[in-house]
């Protein structure tokens, strides 16, 4: 976390700078099936974050060394487009995107029925086009919709959502200022039906009580985003006429 100086993040009326209540998330919009070249795809706008995800496969796992005899592997790349942040990002993998790619792939392997496809891989490509705090969560939400769209079997959907702490107060879904100047950030990948946690990271400073409140907020938000995911998948086929 960026540390907390004299930046005011909560208004005198108790609301946040953008007018949200403490347990209110930013607006989320989802579309399924937006990329004609992919087997499955999704577009997610969460606040000012925009993520697009493509899924290809299952296909034979290459290179051989990543192949597993008993299950499929998720071959995932999380990537931020050079123009996605206010300072341009040099193209290519960096340590941050590698780490996020690894734990996101493992989170998805926990919900996809990978044992159905031995020796295979399922390629998941997450591209962040616009970033405004919380992109790893938006990527998880998008990947889940894209996997369902690709017909990949899963035992649940998965939703990415974060809570954190600003000015010693727990808030849901940090925006950019709150992320930069807040005291803690707890991103999670939640299975909305079973309430299991498949993705978990945290940095900053949280008491146990604060953590529990973050968890409560995240669970609540996961259910809301799950509804939007399901709506996107249904809309794609109920009024469907053409690909993208």
């Amino acid at each position: 976390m960026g540390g907390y100086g004299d930046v005011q993040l909560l208004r005198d009326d108790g609301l946040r700078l953008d007018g949200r209540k403490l347990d209110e998330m930013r607006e989320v919009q989802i579309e399924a099936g937006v990329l004609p070249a992919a087997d499955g795809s999704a577009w997610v706008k969460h606040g000012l974050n925009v993520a697009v995800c493509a899924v290809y496969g299952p296909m034979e796992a290459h290179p051989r060394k990543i192949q597993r005899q008993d299950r499929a592997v998720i071959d995932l790349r999380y990537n931020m487009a050079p123009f996605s942040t206010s300072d341009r990002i040099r193209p290519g993998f960096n340590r941050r995107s590698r780490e996020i790619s690894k734990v996101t792939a493992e989170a998805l392997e926990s919900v996809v029925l990978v044992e159905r496809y031995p020796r295979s891989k399922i390629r998941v490509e997450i591209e962040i086009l616009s970033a405004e705090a919380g992109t790893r969560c938006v990527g998880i939400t998008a990947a889940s919709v894209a996997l369902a769209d690709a017909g990949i079997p899963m035992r649940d959907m998965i939703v990415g959502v974060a809570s954190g702490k600003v000015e010693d107060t727990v808030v849901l879904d940090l925006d950019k200022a709150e992320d930069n100047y807040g005291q803690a950030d707890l991103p999670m990948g939640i299975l909305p039906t079973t309430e299991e946690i498949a993705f978990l990271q945290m940095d900053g400073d949280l008491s146990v009580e604060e953590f529990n409140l973050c968890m409560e907020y995240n669970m609540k938000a996961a259910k809301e985003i799950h509804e939007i995911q399901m709506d996107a998948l249904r809309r794609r086929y109920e009024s469907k006429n053409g690909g993208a």
Partner: protein
Amino acid sequence: MGSPVGRHGDKEMTGAKEGAVQRLVTPGEAIGASSGARAGTGTLKQGDNIISTKLGYAKENNGVLFVEPIYSAYLPRSGDLVVGVIESVRNNLWFAEVNGPFNGLLPMSLAPWKVEFGAAREHMDIGDVMLARVQEVDEAHNIVLTMKGVGLRKLKEGSVLELPVNLIKTIRENNEEILNILKEISDCRIIVGDNGRIWVDGDPANITTVRDGIDLIKSMGHESNVLSSIQNYANERRNN
């Protein structure tokens, strides 16, 4: 040609007669109680519920709950008729790309010709298209193909169209009703592979007629009125 086997339950026995609105479900969604019903394809038992593991339509047949998926990748099964493209050739075997996760292996002994060791390329080379059957799929998903059988051969003319495997079922429904309409209006020879590939042979203009029809089916996805749309399309063609 292979009979239209319902992959996810027998359509004739369940689908049409109910007439109820089909319920579109997403992975993780409960589609019924696990007591009493059995979990069929596209579903899992989870606690007290049977849940869907796929995006698709929830259905029931004789106490078995199953989900008919909207989109599925091709997973080969023994007996499938497939349209493949030769990807590599060895002295005594061919590898063919069959639209699945793994290439199919065609040994010299299952080819329709008498092949001298080392002369495989003279019969089929890289890029050649063939009609084969899946002889065997082992546990590790290795696929053995055969070209011994009536009609199995190298395809020297025509073109190959693609359609998601779940829609292959749609065009074969009701004694291949849609397929027969396409054959009638185009005067083309059409062979439908189980692997989502359709071989069409005829005049270039007639192949285009089939291609446009297949594109129409692709764009309609899983809508219930695919048949009537194809009938309208056919009427337009007949009037031209």
